[in-house]
């Protein structure tokens, strides 16, 4: 089973690297915002999978809880700022 976890972790890491293209190129700032949100969720899943691979599940799940909350708060704060200031300000 741990080889399945390793394969999944490598797969999700490859998807994360592929999402960087949209963050760099994306013509509007909103593309970059949802690309960053996708990278955040991918990192959250990678955290939990690496926790299972290393055997220290407790520590990595606590990290994943904190990172999920940070990801959400960051994305909503960016959305509120963009709603107020418009797209040209970034």
């Amino acid at each position, binding site marked *: 089973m741990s080889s399945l976890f390793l394969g999944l972790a490598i797969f999700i890491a490859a998807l994360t690297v592929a999402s960087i293209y*949209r963050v760099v190129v994306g013509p509007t700032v909103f593309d970059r915002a949802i690309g960053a949100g996708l990278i955040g969720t991918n990192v959250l899943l990678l955290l939990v999978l690496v926790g299972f691979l290393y055997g220290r599940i407790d520590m990595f*799940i*606590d990290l994943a809880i904190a990172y999920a909350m940070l990801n*959400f708060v960051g994305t909503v704060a*960016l959305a509120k700022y963009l*709603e107020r200031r418009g797209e040209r300000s970034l």
Partner: protein
Amino acid sequence: MIQVAAAVLLVAGAFFMLVSSVGLLRLPDFYSRSHAVGKSETLGSMLLLGGLALYNGLELNSIKLLFILLFVAIANPTATHAISRAAVRSGLQIWTRRGRGNGRDLAT
């Protein structure tokens, strides 16, 4: 038996993460990309976390994983909606096949 079910959930979750990444890279417009990312990413992460919780058995760590699952199920669509609403209020036009904003008015 439980391991087989957990493996099925994990592979399904990885498939939906692939769908969301392909949608993010290949779709032509911000609104369609936010559809792909918001929906498929949430489902993929829920399936992955559910598979890991099922693999772990009945422990405290599984309860924590289900908490992360519930949080992601509530927070990810909210964040996607907030970004999309900011885009609508900024006046980003919908892409049609004949060009951008071709007389199509956004409902503001």
